[in-house]
């Protein structure tokens, strides 16, 4: 048993924290939020140069990390600074699927990605799938050499900026079967693919992606036909570890801001943190922070284990972070009072990151239900 970071990860954490402290202050980030792309290519390139994208891939894949704890270290820092650049979508999800399933041609994109020269997105969820990742209504029908894709993908984060999309489609099977789901790597300018973009509440942008007789070829498929689900589930697990770590980082910032505020802001001549009601509630936040940190460690540490245990730990973490995150976000706002209601104050964005993480890849209740099922199995 050992809960210390390796020297490499410690260095990664230090350099990323330093970089974001220097380059990503509230004003800079709020300007990014207000921009029409919702992200900064300077920051993206800066992160790539720092090796952050590489840290999310194994050596075999061209990186120098890729384990659960690498994701946890990187995303905790991204979360702490409220980073909105699409690291999760380009690297962990779409990049990860290429690494898992791609042929040599497809894998050649990874080097560009790790260098900062490629944006990707995963077009998987659909308007009526909510958090059920087996539910794929989008169809892939083979006609001769063509594979014709039709369907609609919902809230595809980073679709506008992406050069290529990883698109899921059903080649066979009923709507909620695992078998029959294929993944395709499609350039965004492919005919029949349209992208209708919009901003997201917690920063960044997403789009509704429509596939209208989009023609793919065998060479566009990632992995074997109809066999995409296992990799998809694995990468969604990784995305959830990353999201949990990001949320943990954001919660740390929320708690640090609150601590600062409680110690500085005075009423009746005393710092408000000396008032017992707030002090005790604040201590409850610290307790839930410890719980959250442990949950992230558990999930990250089991990301490389077999599916049932991995999924159980991931669902436990996402549920716990969902509960603790809501508590921390709401209490941090409440203890701040009015100031936390204003857009320009750092906590406003941080609180949105925390709460809105619950809307990606399964919310608190979804993972509660999943944990129950996995425990009964």
């Amino acid at each position: 048993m050992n809960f210390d970071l390796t020297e490499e990860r410690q260095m990664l954490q230090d350099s990323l924290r330093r970089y974001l402290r220097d380059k990503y202050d509230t004003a800079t980030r709020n300007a990014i939020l207000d921009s029409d792309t919702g992200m900064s290519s300077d920051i993206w390139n800066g992160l790539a140069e720092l090796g952050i994208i590489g840290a999310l891939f194994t050596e075999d894949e061209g990186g120098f990390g890729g384990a659960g704890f690498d994701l946890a270290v990187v995303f905790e820092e991204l979360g702490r600074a409220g980073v909105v650049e699409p690291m999760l979508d380009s690297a962990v999800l779409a990049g990860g699927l290429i690494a898992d399933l791609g042929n040599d041609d497809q894998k050649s994109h990874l080097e560009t990605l790790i260098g900062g020269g490629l944006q990707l997105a995963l077009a998987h969820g659909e308007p009526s799938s909510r958090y059920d990742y087996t539910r794929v209504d989008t169809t892939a029908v083979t006609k001769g050499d063509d594979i014709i894709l039709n369907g609609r993908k919902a809230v595809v984060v980073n679709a506008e900026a992406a050069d290529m999309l990883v698109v899921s489609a059903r080649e066979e099977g009923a709507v909620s079967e695992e078998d029959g789901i294929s993944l395709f790597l499609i350039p965004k300018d492919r005919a029949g693919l349209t992208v209708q973009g919009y901003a997201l509440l917690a920063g960044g942008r997403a789009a509704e992606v429509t596939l209208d007789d989009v023609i793919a070829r065998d060479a566009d498929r990632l992995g074997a036909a109809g066999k995409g689900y296992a990799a998809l589930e694995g990468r969604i697990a990784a995305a959830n570890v990353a999201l949990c770590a990001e949320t943990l980082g954001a919660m740390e910032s929320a708690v640090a801001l609150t601590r600062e505020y409680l110690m500085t802001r005075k009423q009746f001549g005393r710092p408000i943190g000396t008032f017992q009601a707030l002090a005790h509630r604040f201590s409850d936040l610290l307790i839930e922070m410890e719980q959250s940190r442990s949950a992230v460690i558990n999930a990250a540490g089991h990301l490389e284990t077999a599916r049932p245990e991995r999924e159980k730990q991931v669902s436990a973490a996402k549920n716990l972070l969902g509960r603790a995150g809501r508590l921390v976000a709401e209490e941090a706002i409440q203890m701040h009072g009015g100031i936390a209601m204003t857009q320009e104050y750092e906590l406003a964005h941080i609180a949105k990151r925390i709460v809105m993480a619950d809307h990606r890849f399964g919310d608190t209740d979804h993972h509660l239900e999943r944990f129950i099922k996995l425990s009964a199995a």
Partner: protein
Amino acid sequence: MDLSYTDEENAFREEVRAFLDEKLPKEMAAKVREGGDLTKEDMDQWHTILNDQGWLAQNWPKEFGGAEWNAVQRHIWEVEAAAAHAPRIVPFGLGMLAPVLQKFGSKEQQDYWLPRILTGEDWWCQGYSEPGAGSDLASLKTSAIKNDAGTHYIVNGQKTWTTLGQHANMIFCLVRTDKDAKQQEGISFLLIDMDTPGVEVRPIILLDGTHEVNEVWFTDVEVPVENLVGEENKGWTYAKYLLTHERTNIAGVGSSKAGLTAVKRIARAELSGGRPLIENPHFAARVAQVEMDLMAMSTSALRIISKAAAGGAPGLEASMLKVKGSIIRQEINDLARRAAGTYAMPFASEAIEGSNAALPDPLAAGPVAAQYFNNRKLSIFGGSNEIQRGIIAKVTMSGGA
């Protein structure tokens, strides 16, 4: 004990329903239901419709042109108007300034200002809070010093959290007229024309991207002494009158009921595992729990209202309702956000370039996540829940209950 409305009350409810059905513009109701931003014109239009009916000034005495509804009638209105998705009546002139003028203003002030509130000629906003003062109004710093001629006050200072101040041409303020007096003393109640030189309104964008509140800055603003309400240095008394007056609607029962209806509608449309989300036992449990809480709170509100209608003054109970009411409304906002799933993520804000395009909203849920964040204010503004809890404990342990 009798939990049903009387025949008169039922008749009144029918009248309210018929009115809303007939007179509330359909597009306006749709905008409210979908969480769209109401323009000043929308609000003015609704006020005019209500004023034509004689229902704009619901709590004003008849002598001032009001409807003089009792607490039960006002409760019925609140619930029915919320269910019909009517805009809320903007309260600053009608509900907040007017009672003070009616009780403490001069005849001239009443005759001049009150009709202008009804016609919409004046749009009032409230200048109480100041930066750094939080819920502690007594520590305010904005100063008003009489000029040598004794004709004007010269006002300097800053107000904040001024709701809808961007639409207002008038502001009623608490200002400090005696610097040497103890905290609550030395405060006066002043009416200020916002077109006077030296008044500046700066927007505050809230965390959900809305422009709802403002800062109002005063630099050497000249205000005629006629605009003082009541006596100099007695403003705190008038402000307190307002704070204890008119708190029967504090629980927001109508809004919560309408909100819960919306949550159920969304959860029937949203699928989870191929079935309507509302059939999911965990989601259903959350809905049921808040519904049971709301059923109880509605009865608590009616109990206070029936006490108020009988002349009792709601004291502690109002604080309790404020706390529980905000918890319930915030929980309902949370449920709406959860129910919308992935589609809670999109966001339209004036502040973000190109974000005004139509958002995908297959559930017709509206900006549920933005509303969730916006309504965090319910437990902060207007006397935070911490302030209310302190009052409840203090009063109870000093002899009451």
